[in-house]
């Protein structure tokens, strides 16, 4: 749905993007993690060409945006929703007026606009605040308006620029849950950038980590968990330093991994350490196990074969 290749962008001597390749599949929630200054914000703003990259190609929903003229680009942007860290709502307009804005830009008629606005406000649970001004809303409500506005024009893609960074933890969770629901119900593709690990864990199917203008690592989260030496997996699911005689395994698709292992190879499996959380609604993480018994070697071979063995410290 979104493909970025060979993206370069420099501001004077400062290189913000140094050859970035990225692919976000249809219906996927993709998170880019990075510290401030890593270039993730520039990356996101290059996707809808708010920033024009010095080099590289951006394709969204089959259209090569970097190739479009001003008018076509404006039209293409109408199909790309965006939400912002500080909401970026128009203070002079009511909630309904803000949601109607992208429809006005598209030239949607008054009646159709009103219908769509009501629909969107229902979707984000703000139908009763249609006549309120942004200044009268809480941060979470403002971001809900931002989401309703971003989705009013039925975009195929939603870009999220640190959308929860200005919110408290409880509100963050409710906004992330909303994004996840929209992803499921509407099949919406979401590319988000964040500096918060929890955001990645809460909603993302895939993740990338950025530093110094490059993507250091990217992949689906279950795959990352099973990748030895993965920096993202280690940051998302930190385990204490390894003890001798233990192995680290990835917990992803196979939820009953441990009991199956014990039954199949006649071994005892003890958990030495673990980091397991709900990732996009499914338990996932890493476990450090102490496997004992006669079938230990066979059990390890089995894990290795299934690509779940991340680390052997024996």
């Amino acid at each position: 749905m979104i493909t970025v290749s060979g993206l370069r962008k420099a501001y004077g001597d400062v290189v913000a993007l140094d050859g970035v390749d990225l692919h976000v599949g249809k219906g996927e929630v993709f998170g880019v993690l990075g510290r401030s200054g890593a270039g993730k914000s520039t990356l996101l703003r290059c996707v809808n060409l708010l920033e024009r990259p010095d080099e590289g190609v951006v394709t969204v929903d089959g259209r090569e945006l970097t190739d479009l003229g001003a008018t076509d680009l404006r039209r293409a942007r109408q199909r790309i929703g965006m939400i912002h860290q500080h909401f970026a709502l128009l203070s002079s307009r009511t909630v309904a007026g803000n949601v109607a804005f992208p429809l006005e830009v598209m030239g949607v008629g008054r009646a159709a606009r009103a219908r769509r606005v009501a629909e969107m406000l229902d979707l984000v649970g703000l139908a009763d605040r249609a006549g309120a001004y942004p200044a009268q809303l809480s941060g979470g409500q403002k971001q809900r308006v931002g989401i309703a506005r971003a989705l009013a024009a039925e975009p195929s893609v939603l870009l999220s620029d640190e959308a929860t960074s200005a919110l408290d933890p409880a509100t963050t969770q409710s906004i992330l849950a909303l994004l996840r629901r929209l992803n499921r119900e509407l099949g919406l593709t979401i590319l988000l950038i964040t500096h918060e690990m929890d955001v990645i864990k809460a909603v993302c199917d895939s993740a990338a980590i950025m530093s110094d203008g490059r993507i250091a690592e990217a992949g689906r989260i279950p795959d990352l968990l099973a990748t030895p030496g993965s920096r993202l997996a280690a940051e998302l699911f930190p385990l204490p330093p390894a003890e001798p005689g233990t192995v680290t395994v990835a917990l992803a698709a196979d939820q009953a991994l441990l009991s199956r292992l014990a039954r199949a190879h006649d071994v005892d499996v003890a958990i030495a350490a673990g980091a397991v959380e709900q990732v996009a609604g499914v338990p996932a993480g890493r476990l450090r196990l102490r496997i004992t018994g006669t079938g230990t070697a066979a059990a390890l071979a089995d894990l290795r074969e299934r690509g779940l063995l991340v680390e052997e410290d024996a």
Partner: protein
Amino acid sequence: MTWSEMSPLLWEATGQTAVMVGWSTLFTVLFGLPLGVCLAGTDRGGLFPAPAVRRVLGLVVNVGRSVPFIVLMIAVIPVTRVLTGTTIGTAAAVVPLTIGAVPFFARLVETALREVGRDVVQAAEAMGAGRVTIVTRVLLAEALPGLVAGLTVTVVTLISYSAMAGVIGGGGLGDLAVRYGYQRFETTLMVVTVVVLVVVVQLAQTLGDAVARRLSHR
């Protein structure tokens, strides 16, 4: 001087001031608003950056603002003649008043537009809005309370400028105070005129503040 003697003079002068300030306010908005939009828009990081254009506009505006109004009034007499066919009277005074107030108002417009957050403008760009849409529905709409406040200050300034219009026969309250109060030693009339001016300015400011407050939803 009795009240019945003063009353017609005051009414006439108030009417002249209203005509001068009214028309020049209208023309000031007509020319100053687009000029202010250009000043803000051509700046670096503006909607249509053009540093060279901005420098020229900025220079013109600053020259306009640095010429004392009484000098400006005399200096633009040729322009006044071309535009109104005369160089004296209330209508003629509208020309220098407008020329004097446009740069002033344009700077206030520029400042008000600058107050609109960059993120809001970018959000509109991200939605595929064009420049015209952004100027009218984002910049001007968001800055409206500030624009009204700027207009109020401009009107008050125009009222004060118009007091000098007597020099070119424009009449008005200021002229009345000078001719009767100063030149004919009619202190009572001068005091009354000043009171009327104070009330008029007060009304303009209060009305402007109320409108700005009503429009602001921050």
